[in-house]
């Protein structure tokens, strides 16, 4: 398995170089270093000298891919692309264009993002699987049909509606929890309840429908009939057999997103005042802060690759027939 993981990590290197190259191309196609300097320095009173010194201080005065003024290998290495990319591969994200250490910022903002994303993910997973199993238990009944209609309705409404409606109902009208805010530690639970509940509720429609379809595929299998024939209760059949055998497709969809939980949720964090990573990239794009954009795109790609590797590994844990080689 180790050799498989090493091979996958090596495969990741060209992918990451490619992602980085595309980020460079797309970003600099829209923003020139002069535009970036103006965005950082403000529109008023910006002289060409000021722009030049700003670019020089951040290395944006260098050419993007080929430095014709240098000789030999430096033609390729003394460029913005190589200088900035090499640092990324050692996870040295450097400083943002506003002179903040990006690594420190990411570490700091990851925790609040996780504080919302992790409980939402776990509660949603448990709730959706339990509800799906419940519907499979009562399949074909009025409960099943009405819940499926409800699930489609829940899916059809925008997540933003749940956020605003949740804030109005639970905080503005019933005064149960704060509308928004964040505190670390136990004191922060009161701020987390509402976004987590809304996150779980907003995803319940799609989640339940998907898990239900997975479990329905299993419910008519021979091994289920055998389990019933052994005299097991329906609950034991569902949780002990159907759930276990349905894990493989569930893992495919679930494990891959675990690493990206660190990246947070843009809308949820904005509306609930959560100081997480959700809006970090978007804010950086608006501010034309290339240092943050490239760091976050790189990090996102790394986490996605990690997610895929974890998914492969998790198969071996739940299905002994799968071997990584």
């Amino acid at each position, binding site marked *: 398995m180790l050799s498989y993981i090493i091979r996958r990590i090596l495969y990741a290197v060209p992918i990451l170089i490619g992602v980085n190259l595309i980020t460079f191309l797309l970003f600099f196609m829209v923003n020139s270093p002069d*535009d970036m300097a103006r965005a950082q320095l403000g529109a*008023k009173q910006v*002289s060409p000298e000021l722009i030049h010194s700003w670019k020089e201080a951040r290395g944006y005065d260098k050419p993007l891919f080929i430095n014709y003024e240098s000789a030999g290998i430096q033609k390729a290495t003394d460029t913005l692309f190589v200088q900035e990319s090499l640092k990324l591969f050692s996870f040295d994200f450097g400083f943002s264009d506003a002179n903040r250490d990006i690594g*420190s910022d990411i570490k700091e903002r990851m925790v609040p993002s996780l504080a919302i994303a992790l409980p939402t993910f776990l509660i949603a997973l448990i709730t959706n699987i339990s509800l799906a199993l419940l519907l499979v238990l*009562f399949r074909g009944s009025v409960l099943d049909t009405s819940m499926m209609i409800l699930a489609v309705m829940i899916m059809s409404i925008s997540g933003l509606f749940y956020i605003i409606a949740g804030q109005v109902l639970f905080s503005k009208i019933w005064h149960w929890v704060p*509308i928004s805010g964040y505190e670390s530690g136990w004191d922060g*639970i009161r701020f987390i309840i509402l976004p987590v509940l809304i996150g779980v509720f907003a995803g319940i429609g799609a989640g339940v429908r998907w898990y239900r379809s997975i479990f329905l595929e299993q419910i008519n299998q021979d091994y289920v009939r055998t389990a019933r024939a052994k005299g097991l209760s329906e609950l034991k059949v569902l949780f002990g057999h159907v759930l276990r055998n349905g894990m493989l497709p569930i893992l495919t969809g679930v494990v891959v997103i675990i690493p990206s939980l660190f990246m947070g949720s843009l809308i949820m964090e*904005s509306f609930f*005042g959560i100081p997480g990573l959700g809006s970090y990239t978007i804010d950086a794009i608006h501010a034309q802060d290339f240092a943050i954009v490239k760091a976050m795109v790189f990090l996102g790609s790394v986490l996605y690759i990690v997610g895929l590797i974890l998914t492969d590994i998790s198969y071996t844990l739940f299905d002994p027939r799968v071997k990584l080689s």
Partner: protein
Amino acid sequence: MSKVISIKWVSILLSISIFVYADVWNNPHDSQKVKTDTLFSSFSLPPKKLDPVISYSMNEWAIIGQIYEPPLQYNYLKRPYTLEPLTLTTLPTIRYLDKDNNEVEEDSDNVMYSEYILEIRKDVKYQNHPSFVKNNTGELLYGALDKESLEEIETPYDLSKTATRNLYAEDYAYAIKRMAVRQNHSPVLDSMLEHIVGLEKFSRMITQIAKEKNQNHQLLDLRPYTIEGVTVVDSHTLQIKMKGKYPQFLYWLSMNFFAPIPWEADMFYQQDALIAKNITLNWFPVGTGAYYLAENNPNKQMRLLRNPNYHTEYYPTLSKEEQAASHVPKDLLKDAGLKLPFIQEVIYSLEKESIPLWNKFLQGYYDASGISSEAFDQAVQISTSGNMGLSQEMEEKGIVLKGSVQPSIFYLAFNMVDPVVGGYSLAAKKLRQAISIAQNQEEYISIFMNERGIAAQGIIPPGIFGYEEGEEGTNKVIYDWVKGKRVRKPLNVAKRLLAEAGYPNGISEKTGKPLKLYYDTTATGPDDRALMDWQRKQFDKLGIQLVIRATDYNRFQDKVRKGKAQLFSWGWNADYPDPENFFFLLYGGNASVDTNGAGINSSNYKNTKFDTLFTQMKTMKNTPKRMQLIKEMTEILREDAPWIWGIHPKSLALSHQWYQNVLPNDMANNTLKYKRINASLRVKKQQEWNQPVIFPFVLLVLFSILMGFLLLRAYHNRQKMVIYKEKQ
């Protein structure tokens, strides 16, 4: 069984503990702090630059204005805006010198230099800060920090020791030297190079030294270097020598760029180990102001605490005449003569979205709020006569509405080098005048701004010297004065002017084709469609076809700088309350196309007479003679019409009844020290407005129990049914 019961009890206790946590359940703040003189405010955009030589935006000034103290400040109550000493004993003494440095009269033709002498107060001290702590040998205790010693440190205040020291003239000189270092990217350096004697030479030298020091990983101490025009006369006297006359320099002396920087702080924050932890002067300011920044987490919260070393300062007093002239209500004078500041702590929380911010304000959890477009109808009602007042809901809550016309202008500019709309021929003028008449600003203000603005009559906004009310201040090219009111000229006047310009009914006499104009804009979102439709309609009234060229801000700026945009909208917010700060936007020497895009005159307007008058006017004091020149300049601009004189926006702000001494002041940034909080009233109202509604919770629990019971029964029935079926 016992396990099930214990889980149940833990859940019940957890729920109860959350709900009884505070007196009201939905309070987002520390319930103890709500009872103290703490102001709760918010920010939507995290300030990025708190270094006073760099910072150049309103959201940053709102913070550093409370921390740093430049030599002068604006009187909080007096109108028109009046400068007064802040850290000086009196306003600066100004001497005028000839080329041989002999003193001459102010109005002498031989004035080559003006010398500003600043006498600094001796009772001003900095906030407590670790950079001031020294060891037994007199060296900075925290002058050589390494990574290991900072492992547990997140802010400079985590270091165990802090100290303070007095403010000296050298600190102001040090700040000017910091401004001159190119690597610090001060946005005003290039302006100041033109004015402060020797600054240009110094800047070149110090920038090179800074570069070398940086390459060798050495700290840069600016004390040994001197600027020719900046002299530290003694510990509390500073002399700044300017080229020629530059009366606006007094206004600059009230801005953050001239706030003092202690060398200890500069050296402290240059250490690599601190920079790696985001602990820099840009994030943790060191000032002498009424407050210091105790916490700076731009992703979540910023916290100002009262500076225990703050010098003596009193709430301003006004004579009866001044009170009447400034239109100051009586309740704003009840604290006159009392020692400042009143508020002990300020907590700014990040609120990116306007809806939660507005709801929290209504719940009493923010002490003040602006009015977003979504909340406008809920907050404000406009009477049939056009007067603005609070809605009944707001009045019942005791909320107070304060508004002021901002010293800003938003305009639609013609590119004067454009062959169609530009130029100075009579026909070109008439074309621009016709379009200006057709562009109904009053309608725009009503539809798109909820009446939050006034139609501009010229370049100068209200509150700035040179602005005139009534018939005197009316732009007669666009308006008529009818029965004591301004009335926009009828459309047929515009059509006549258009015909005289060579475009009868919008058709070019030369080509026989309809006149097509191009409007560059960054308004590209779906919300802007209505605005663009309205804009097209204004031109369509004259038969002119308007082509909207939507573009991103970078391209837009680029086109404007290069003089490639034909029509475009832009705005200007005053740096200081002087007409020079507006007229220079149209001074020929600042034309964008002639200055490689660096000039501020983006419509590239050039009029020799206007430029001559501007040169005369800019160095004058606010005298009747200056007023006369301003009138002449305004008339030239109205006639040439290089801009459609758009609007001066009105800012509206709401505050709760417990937030007192609130007076809009668009020039001063350090107004927090005058404000007051009635904390007991706030607590009372918060309790009153936020009592939790319990019954839905009880219903929810009962519903869950019922559902659980029904499902359990259904399951048992189903189990039996399965067994029965299987038996059969």
